[in-house]
């Protein structure tokens, strides 16, 4: 066919972050410009490449079949871009070249996120064409125990934050007597500064569906639930569509790929409770109760959902399973350092020039992430503190920026990698106020079951208020430390138990903010 008659092929993100920056208006403008010029365009909506500062990102396929990126393309840029030859991938100030050549993207190791931003999110055909369901097909040729062993050998640890070896969890469930068992995905991604679960669920939901199906086959479960927070309506829609498509192609249902094995999957929606990220409270919520944390033992792997053995894993843990099965444990294990194997989708957030998602093998330092990827602060001021691992993670000063991202290295400095969110603050931040906020957040989100968390967090706000007001500073700082110790050792779960991380790290590394008059 003659070149002029072929429709220009465009890829534009449908990710919530792109929507938040005006991508829908860009799409309307692109369609209008094409119509006005009498040009045929085919516009595919894909996930986000994760370079949020370049959104809305528009990719155009050139004559050689390469995807050429332009960004950020807001609606008001469209007329001049189209006039300059956007549909033929011609030069322009916003032209970034091939996506794979953009340094931010080129320097990553995309395993779990390999398809995000590349394919149409819920399309089985595109998913399979890009290596999807190879992991499941291999799993169906193995025994459950062999699948569990493969996951164990990969070194995969829980990406939700606790970093517990995924294979060991699975083995416990596998070894329980046959009977009803469940696979539950914890998609209650409530940590500020994190959005990798959201991006994966919106951009490649079938990877999660496949990972859960492999888990079910490995442990002998026939029913699964994905518990998604209600703040993520885009994810909920994408997952539901992906599940319908998977069922229509026998990747879910009563006879998966003709194997005779059955697995059903359902999306359940949370209701704005941060505590549901804690696995036992999530199970309570799924059962229709107040999401109060359970005592342990028993472990969820032995008595979980509805009292039955349950695999409960984070989105990224489960979404990393398909590639482990498809390419083998050794392939995945060869990435990383020490006991932190594989890759981590890191989220660069807060006051950074180039915020977004960076999937890298463990071992990359904070400094590389903040400056080489993140480009320094968005405000142009010095970065003074970063919080890693969500609201319960420690605040780190510049002197700790050379710490490699590794579970053990972070534990050694009293910090946590958590779910891989990094929030940067410039030098205008008041760390005493951030410490107060950590206690306030804990008070708002405490489930109320245990006293150290429920009462301790409220008392914590009051003590920090007195410090801020300059009332008996020394005595109140001692009181705060004492209180944090009680919460740390006396709380039933990580919410109360780890609220001391941001508070005491702020006191330790930024003492001046707690002693100055304001």
């Amino acid at each position: 066919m003659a070149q002029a008659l072929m429709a220009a092929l465009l890829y534009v993100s449908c990710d919530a972050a792109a929507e938040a920056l005006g991508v829908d208006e860009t799409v309307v403008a692109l369609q209008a410009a094409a119509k006005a010029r009498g040009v045929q365009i085919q516009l595919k909506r894909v996930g986000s490449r994760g370079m949020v500062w370049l959104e809305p990102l528009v990719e155009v396929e050139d004559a050689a079949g390469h995807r050429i990126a332009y960004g950020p393309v807001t609606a008001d840029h469209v007329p001049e871009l189209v006039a300059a030859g956007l549909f033929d991938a011609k030069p322009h100030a916003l032209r970034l070249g091939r996506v794979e050549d953009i340094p931010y993207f080129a320097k990553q190791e995309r395993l779990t996120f390999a398809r995000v931003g590349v394919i149409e999110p819920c399309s089985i055909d595109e998913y399979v064409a890009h290596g999807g369901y190879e992991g499941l097909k291999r799993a169906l040729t193995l025994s459950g125990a062999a699948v569990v062993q493969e996951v164990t050998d990969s070194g995969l640890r829980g990406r939700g934050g606790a970093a517990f070896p995924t294979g060991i969890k699975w083995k416990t469930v596998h070894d329980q007597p046959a009977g009803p068992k469940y696979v539950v995905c914890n998609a209650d991604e409530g940590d500020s500064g994190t959005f990798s679960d959201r991006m994966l669920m919106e951009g490649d939901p079938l990877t999660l569906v496949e990972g859960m199906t492999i888990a079910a086959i490995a442990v002998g479960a026939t029913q699964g639930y994905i518990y998604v927070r209600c703040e993520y309506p885009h994810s909920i829609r994408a997952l539901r569509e992906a599940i319908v498509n998977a069922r229509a192609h026998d990747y879910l249902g009563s006879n998966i790929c003709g194997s005779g094995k059955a697995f059903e999957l359902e999306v359940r929606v949370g209701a704005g409770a941060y505590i549901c990220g804690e696995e036992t409270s999530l199970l309570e919520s799924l059962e229709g109760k107040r999401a109060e944390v359970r005592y342990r033992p028993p472990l969820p792997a032995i008595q979980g959902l509805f009292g039955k053995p349950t695999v409960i894993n984070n989105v990224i843990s489960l979404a990393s399973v398909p590639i482990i099965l498809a390419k083998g444990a050794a392939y995945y294990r060869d990435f990383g350092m020490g006991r932190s194997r594989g890759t981590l989708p890191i989220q660069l957030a807060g006051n950074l020039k180039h915020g977004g998602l960076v999937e890298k093998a463990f071992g990359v330092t904070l400094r590389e992430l903040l400056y080489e990827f993140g480009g320094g602060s968005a405000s142009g001021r010095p970065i003074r503190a970063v919080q890693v691992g969500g609201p319960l993670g420690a605040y780190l000063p510049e002197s700790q920026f050379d710490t490699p991202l590794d579970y053990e290295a972070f534990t050694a400095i009293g910090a946590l990698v958590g779910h891989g969110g990094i929030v940067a603050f410039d030098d205008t931040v008041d760390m005493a106020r951030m410490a107060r906020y950590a206690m306030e957040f804990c008070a708002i989100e405490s489930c109320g079951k245990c006293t150290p968390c429920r009462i301790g967090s409220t008392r914590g706000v009051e003590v920090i208020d007195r410090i801020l007001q300059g009332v008996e500073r020394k005595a109140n700082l001692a009181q705060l430390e004492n209180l944090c110790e009680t919460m740390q050792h006396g709380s039933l779960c990580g919410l109360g138990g780890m609220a001391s991380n941001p508070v005491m790290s702020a006191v330790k590394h930024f003492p001046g903010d707690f002693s100055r008059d304001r």
Partner: protein
Amino acid sequence: MAETDLQRQALVDGILATHAAQPGPLLPILHGIQDALGYIPPDQVPRIAHVLNLSRAEVHGVISFYHYFRQEPPGRHVLHVCRAEACQAMQCERTEAHAKACLGVDYGDTTADGAFTLEAVYCLGNCAAGPSVMVDDKLYGRVTPERLDAVLDEWRKR
């Protein structure tokens, strides 16, 4: 929205019938009712409790535990303003203060004209482009006070 008590009752009964038999049905039922009516009317609690064989206290306890469920009708639109750390790093306090000042309400309240209910939220997952707000299901990033004015103007007309 349902116009009469009878219609409302029929709607709730329909939602109960859809979900009552599934395992752990209470949250899907509460979501169903709030999606349809905008809130969970307290006078429906006895009905929900009866169908699920729970006490009224248990149902009320669940509704009041979760920040998202509301027991009073909201305004035409719900504005969620993110207060979490990543947005704080981008000065969301300014956006927050502006929202409260220009709507004349605090968190949890509805404007006098019934256009907006203002709610705090702890993370919308848009942490690389804060400060973030959400109006109903629509997400907005880099929301300075000036941009918030434009967003509110757009939604006030709907």
